[in-house]
C-alpha cells in the first residue's frame, strides 16, 4: 500500500475520526466483493444490496471504537457479511433461490451457438451443484474460488481452525468434482 492507496486499517481509523472519504474508499474496495458473495450464495439482488449496506452501516457506527491490532478490517467485514448471508438464506430456505440473471455475460461471445448452449448448461449445472452444498461448505468454496481466499483467511472469517476449513474444502471440492465428472 502507498500513501495514495492506504490500507484498510488506516482507512478505518480515519473513518472512526469521521472521515467520510476514507469510509467511501473502504466501500469502493469491499462492497462489490461482498455483493458478489451474496449473489453467488443465492441472495436476490435487493437482499444482497441490503446485506452489503447493513454490513457497512455497522462498520460506520463501530469505527470510532475500533482498535488496531485485532482482526483485520477486511476479515471483520467479511465475517459480518458472511454470517448475515448464511442467516438470511436459512431464514428463507423454503423459497427457491433467486436465479442469477447475469450469468449469460460470462459465456464466450465468440463461441458457436452449440458451444454457447453447452457452456450455459455446464455453468447452470455447476451452479446447481454449488447451491446443493451445505451452508459452510458452500460459503467456503465461494470464498476460495470466487474471492481467492486461502484456507487460513477463510478460517479467520469463520472464526474456526484452519483444519476445520480444510475439512470443509475437501468435502465441498469432492462433491463438486463428482458433479463435474458426471458432466464430462
Amino acid at each position, binding site marked *: 500500500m502507498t500513501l495514495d492507496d492506504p490500507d484498510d486499517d488506516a482507512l478505518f481509523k480515519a473513518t472512526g475520526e469521521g472521515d467520510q472519504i476514507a469510509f467511501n474508499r473502504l466501500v469502493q474496495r469491499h462492497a462489490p466483493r461482498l455483493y458478489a458473495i451474496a449473489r453467488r450464495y443465492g441472495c436476490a439482488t435487493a437482499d444482497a444490496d441490503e446485506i452489503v449496506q447493513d454490513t457497512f452501516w455497522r462498520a460506520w457506527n463501530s469505527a470510532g471504537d475500533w482498535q488496531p491490532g485485532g482482526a483485520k478490517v477486511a476479515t471483520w467485514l467479511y465475517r459480518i457479511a458472511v454470517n448475515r448471508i448464511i442467516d438470511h438464506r436459512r431464514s428463507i430456505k423454503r423459497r427457491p433461490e433467486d436465479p442469477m440473471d447475469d450469468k449469460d455475460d460470462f459465456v464466450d461471445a465468440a463461441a458457436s451457438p452449440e458451444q454457447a448452449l453447452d457452456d450455459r448448461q455446464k455453468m447452470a449445472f455447476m451452479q446447481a451443484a454449488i447451491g446443493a452444498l451445505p451452508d459452510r461448505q458452500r460459503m467456503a468454496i465461494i470464498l476460495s474460488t470466487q474471492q481467492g481466499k486461502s484456507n487460513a483467511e477463510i478460517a479467520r472469517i469463520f472464526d474456526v481452525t484452519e483444519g476445520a476449513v480444510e475439512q470443509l474444502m475437501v468435502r465441498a471440492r469432492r462433491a463438486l*468434482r463428482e458433479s463435474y465428472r458426471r458432466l464430462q
Partner: protein
Amino acid sequence: MTLQEFDTALLTWGSDLENWPAGARAEARSLLETDPQAQLLLDEMTLFNAELGAAMAVGTSDGAIAAKTQAALQQRRDTVGLWSLLPLRKILGFGSLAGVGGAAMAFVAPSAVNTGALLAIALGGGAL
C-alpha cells in the same frame, strides 16, 4: 506422498501448487515426476477449478455497486442526523413522561383525577 494423499491434498488446497504448504508441495512435485496418474489428477483439478470459477462469476459493475451502497448509507446517515437534531424528539420524550406522571396522579389522588387525566391526554397523548 501416495496418489491418494496427493488427491486429498488437491481437494484441500486446490490445483495451484503454489498455494500448498512448502513440504506438501515438494512431495507433490516428486510424485508428479514419477506418476502419470498424479499429473492426470492435477490436470483434471485445474480444468475443474476453471469451470468452477466461471460458474462463480457475478456480472455486475463494481462501480455501480459501490455507488449504490454509498448512496444508501448517506441516506441512512441523513435520516439519523435529522432525527438527532429534531427538537420534537425532546418534546415527545417530555410528553411521554408527563403522561405517565399524570396517569399516576389520577390513580393515587382521586381529587386530582381531572387534572391528571387532562395532563395525560394533553402531553402523553401527543407522544403516542
